[in-house]
């Protein structure tokens, strides 16, 4: 669907698994309304209105500096942690304004995985996964153990680490460390998972494992992924939003956006004719 001034509500989603028409009866899981963001004087996002369908993967694409990572970080209130950063507009999670909620609670509901795997270097695999639970005040060893195992299974890492979850998290390969970070994010049972270029530092095999994992996880949660890799967006995302200079240019089903984009800017970007 082409961008209309000030609002992009989303494409028609008939027969799309896990995503009824977000303009109709089913609500988007996450929605931004006229979301703008600044770093000091510099505006990074300009009035982005976008509905993110539930139980689906939405990819955010765009050239470097277009604001896609900033957009992601606004969704779970990470942006405001930067000095001088501010946000205008609304971010709605199930219709509730996340900026009126406790940020820690929001970050438990909206988990995040970063570009570079960042396990806590002094912690074991087990402790890394349990960290989020402990921050949330869950300390019952049985509860924590069950959550750790469940999270490692959901992140498709369990079979590779089950022999020794007490070794250091940093002893794992890069791809395994990234899945460990996903397990850590999953441990607190988030409803939405934000992924900021989660496979950009990984080889094709590790990337494929992450993509397989995304495919499985979307059955249970809503996923928003920022990626520079067009083919990755095409492979994993049900919907794709294209950002340019802080503005939302186009949002559509991924297959439509890559087959017949409505906006010339989108066409030029995805075909590499940009600039």
């Amino acid at each position, binding site marked *: 669907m082409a961008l209309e001034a000030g609002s992009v509500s989303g494409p028609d989603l008939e027969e799309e698994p896990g995503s009824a028409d977000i303009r109709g009866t089913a609500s988007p899981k996450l929605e931004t309304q006229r979301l703008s963001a600044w770093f000091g004087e510099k505006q990074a996002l300009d009035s982005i209105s976008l509905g993110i369908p539930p139980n689906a993967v939405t990819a955010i*694409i765009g050239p470097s500096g277009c604001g896609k990572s900033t957009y992601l970080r606004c969704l779970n209130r990470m942006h405001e942690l930067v000095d001088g950063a501010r946000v205008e507009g609304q971010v709605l999670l199930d219709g509730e304004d996340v900026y009126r909620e406790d940020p820690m609670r929001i970050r438990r509901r909206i988990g995040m995985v970063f570009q570079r795997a960042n396990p806590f270097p002094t912690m074991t695999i087990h402790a890394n996964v349990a960290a989020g639970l402990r921050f949330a005040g869950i300390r019952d060893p049985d509860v924590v153990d069950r959550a750790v195992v469940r999270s490692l299974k959901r992140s498709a890492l369990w079979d590779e680490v089950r022999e020794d979850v007490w070794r250091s998290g940093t002893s794992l390969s890069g791809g395994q460390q990234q899945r460990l970070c996903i397990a850590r994010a999953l441990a607190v049972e988030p409803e939405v998972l934000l992924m900021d270029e989660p496979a950009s530092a990984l080889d094709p095999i590790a990337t494929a494992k992450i993509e397989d994992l995304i495919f499985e996880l979307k059955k249970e949660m809503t996923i928003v992924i920022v990626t*520079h890799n*067009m*083919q990755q967006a*095409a492979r994993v995302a049900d919907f794709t939003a294209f950002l340019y200079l802080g503005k939302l240019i186009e949002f559509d089903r991924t297959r439509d956006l*890559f*087959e*017949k*984009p409505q906006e010339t800017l*989108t*066409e030029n*970007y*995805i*075909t*590499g*004719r*940009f600039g």
Partner: protein
Amino acid sequence: MTTTPTGTPAERKALAKGLLKLNENMLTLAELSELAIRKAADALARLDAAIADEVFTLDQEIYALQLEIEKTCGDLIALHAPVASDLRTITTSLKMTTDLDRIGRYAKDIAEITLQFPPEAENWYGRLPGLPKMVDRTIEMVDVVTEAFVRRTADSVRDMAGVDDAVDTLFEETLAAVTKFMAEGFLSADLGVRYILVARYLERIADHAVNIGERVVYMVTGERLPRVRAAERSEGGPLG
């Protein structure tokens, strides 16, 4: 090195070069197919075996070029993961080659029929006015869709099905004329059936031109035209 979504500038340049080559080969293929119709019709009109033989050579060239285009398309997809208009151009080209190859095959079939005419056979081509009209219309249709492909325009080919209706009418007229001459004993069944087959092949060539028109609309706009029954179409079209 600066990278684009589809790769480095060098890779983008390679894709652009490949698409240019594809475009040139598609134009050549369309021209060869159209030439095959012209030659086949000319051979039939003159009952000239030498011209008919040329159509066989053209058919071989068309087939060889079709294979080359298929390979180019495969390479472009495998190496460059094209998207959007690049992808639509490649998939449209792949589909169009089949239609253009079929057009060449029908031209060859007409040439074959011409070669089967007995030496003493009377030439009825001039007495069946529907046939030369069908030849002109089908060539014009192939011209129009080729032009639209090259210029990347959709408007001129949106109503090719409507134009095809006129060819279908000419086919019916030719069929009626031939059967009438046969029934009245002026035209032998042997020759009459051959002329009916020629008319049928021309009618099929027009159908393939319609297909190509639909593909070009998709390539240019991303829109897939619905099939509409002739009875539901309004009369007329870009060719009148």
